């Protein structure tokens, strides 16, 4: 009896993940169709564009670039997903990672440590800085009830000007007579070794580790259970003795700590410092898209980041073949929108079906009685 119930539950779980996977893939196809229509409307041949994307994207060189481009997306998507798991919308990843990049790049030049420790130190500083910036939003929420969506949006802009001020007045490397718009270069001991020389930074491995840790901490630990419980039903969680305020603080700080790593592939893997135009921006928003596409699940996040990385890696060749490269970003945005809509519709459909089945079962029970 008990055994059959568990198999039934497993079967339901498998079916649910099939519905999830199927609806996500279907949504991606639907989004590609919509983009094809848009391409046609603007006088471009979608088949040419898509073939170009596939042909360039699948070559060996580009597959490495895909991994490279997916790395920061994995960090930022994980950061966003930690918030989502507690029903917190951390739009502030952008500000958190840029702040962390500047602080970590600067602190990294002030210590001299043996190689692995130096790298570890910089990563740690980045995580602390990201967590610190995120904690402002957490404290505003706990202390004054300020919605984290608004506060993190505002903190993004505040971070941008604060960073610029810090950089211009204190952290800029003036040794080149003002020509250099970066912080002082980090010593070789503080640089992350490349996996593939000049192609792929070791940060890719770190990203995989972080996603795996995310799975362990959020899905398999006591803390993660409390986090998800607070997100699913805050009142029940509080009744069960989970401290609501502390969970908000911890979740946002954890999110900010992971966000702090977003720019690290550039800071310690490529540029070896921070520069307003050298450090990549906009990953915070892309991370939201990747987290949504991956439905906050570790496997989903990695796959979605790889998909986005794949699309991004083809943009230069696409431009050369006569299709504006920004279409890649448009495709990504439309994919996310369609996936979210289809997920919403399919989960409603699943719920309704479950409810209908329960009703039928109840009716059957009633007739037996």
């Amino acid at each position, binding site marked *: 009896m008990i055994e059959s119930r568990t198999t039934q539950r497993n079967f339901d779980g498998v079916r649910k993940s099939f519905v999830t996977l199927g609806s996500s893939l279907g949504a991606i196809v639907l989004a590609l169709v919509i983009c094809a229509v848009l391409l046609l409307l*603007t*006088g471009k041949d979608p088949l040419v564009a898509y073939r170009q994307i596939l042909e360039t994207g699948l070559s060996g060189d580009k597959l490495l670039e895909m991994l490279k481009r997916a790395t920061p997306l994995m960090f930022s998507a994980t950061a966003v997903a930690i918030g989502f798991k507690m029903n917190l*919308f951390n*739009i502030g990843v952008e500000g958190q990672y840029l702040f962390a990049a500047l602080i970590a790049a600067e602190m990294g030049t002030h210590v001299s440590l043996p190689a692995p420790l130096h790298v570890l130190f910089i990563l740690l500083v980045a995580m602390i800085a990201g967590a610190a910036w995120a904690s402002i939003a957490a404290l*505003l929420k706990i*202390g*004054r*009830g*300020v*919605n984290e*969506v*608004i*506060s993190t*949006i*505002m*903190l993004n*802009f*505040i971070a*941008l*000007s*604060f960073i*610029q*001020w810090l950089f*211009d*007045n204190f952290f800029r490397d003036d040794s080149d007579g003002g020509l250099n718009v970066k912080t002082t270069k980090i010593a070789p001991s503080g640089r992350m070794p490349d996996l593939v020389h000049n192609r792929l930074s070791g940060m890719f491995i770190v990203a995989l580790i972080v996603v795996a840790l995310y799975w362990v901490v959020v899905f398999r630990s006591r803390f993660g259970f409390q986090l998800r419980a607070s997100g699913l039903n805050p009142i029940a969680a509080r009744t069960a003795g989970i401290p609501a305020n502390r969970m908000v603080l911890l979740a946002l700080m954890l999110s900010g700590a992971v966000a702090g790593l977003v720019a690290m592939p550039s800071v310690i893997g490529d540029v070896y410092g921070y520069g307003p135009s050298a450090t990549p921006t906009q990953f915070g*928003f*892309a991370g*939201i*898209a990747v987290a*949504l596409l991956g439905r906050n699940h570790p496997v989903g996040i990695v796959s979605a980041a790889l998909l986005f990385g794949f699309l991004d890696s083809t943009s230069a060749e696409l431009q050369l073949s006569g299709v*504006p490269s*920004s*279409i890649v*970003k*448009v495709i*990504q*945005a*439309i994919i*996310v*929108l369609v996936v*979210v*809509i289809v997920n*919403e*519709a399919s989960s*409603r459909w699943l719920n309704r079906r479950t409810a209908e089945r329960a009703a039928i079962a109840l009716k059957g029970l009633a007739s037996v009685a």
Partner: protein
Amino acid sequence: MNRSKIFRIITYVLGPLAVISIVRLWTDQDALTSSNTVGTALRLTVPILLAGMAGLWAERCGVLNIGIEGMMILGTWFGAWGAWQFGPWVGLLFAVLGGMLGGFIHAIATVRFNIDQIISGVVINLLAFFGVRYLSDLVFVGQPGGGVSQSPPQTSAIPRFDLPILSGGQIGGWKSPDVLAWFETRKWFILGDIGGIGRGLTSNLSWATVIAVAIVPISAWVLWRTRIGLRLRASGESPVAAESLGVMVNRLRYGGLLVSGGLAGLAGGTLSIVASSYYRQGQTAGRGFIGLATMIFGNWRPSGVLGGAMLFGYAEGIKLVASDSIAALFLFIAAVSLIFFVVAIIRRLRVRSLFALGIFILSTIAYQTVSTVPESLTQSLPYVVTLIVLATANQRLRPPAMAGVPFRPGEPH
């Protein structure tokens, strides 16, 4: 008008005016209330004001709109394209239509398909940013002066005018006297300030500015004095109750979001057609979010949005025209907070008096130490102010009760 109302107008209008006049005469910073500063401030106020009204329309009907920035971007692009092709007025129309396209996508996603409203807004921002870049690549590249991040310049502009008599505008062929300028140049106490502010508001006015400012009372009237406005607000306060009374909540939300998108598009259009004569990538520069901020501390009311937009517009204007005067502005804030402190002491409001004292001390220190505030820090002023307002006055803000909560008509709740 009864006596207390007159008294109130005197304290709230003439009071600050007197204080700023004293500060101006004391510090000799005529730029504080010069027509140049005020005119610039007005130009910078308009896009923020329209963005704030866009947020107001969306949230009043029950849908959060984080996508205002994206809808503004659509407005700047389509506006510039229309103005380049067909002239400035058609351009403004295209700006509105472009914004409405964004509003429509938002409505489909949130009202029809019930997805999270913040998610939809974030995606619209991304979509708009890269969508117009794609379009620029197709349309503007190769045109003289155009490129992937810039449109070719427009050849004609929306006409501007001076108000007759007050600012020396034309009546028929007769050039009327410029009364306010006469006062402004005399620099007398209060009268000189009225001259400067008045002239800034009435001279060299673009018709687009007039339309934009008129949208505030029109919105207030529609939303608070008409039947459809009542229903629209009911959809934001309690869609279930509204539905039970026969209101078509979702249809109204579609309408509200189209208006919201249109206003955001117009905000973008004023940037690319009125404030400049071409589209540029990044032209909106976060103004959609500043608009959202003005909506919040305007307490979701049109007059509040106007006040907030004016505050930010003025701060931005004085930074642009006369950055030396910023220090004098701190003196003004110090003086006002001192008055508030005295009033709070008399009324025995301990918390408020401490708050006012804190601001007084901070602004006095700022006046003493800061001769020129670093540009990078003043940029974040609107955002810092918003956070402070949210953190201190959160209890008094009253957003529409059900804004942000998905609503499915005809389902049990």
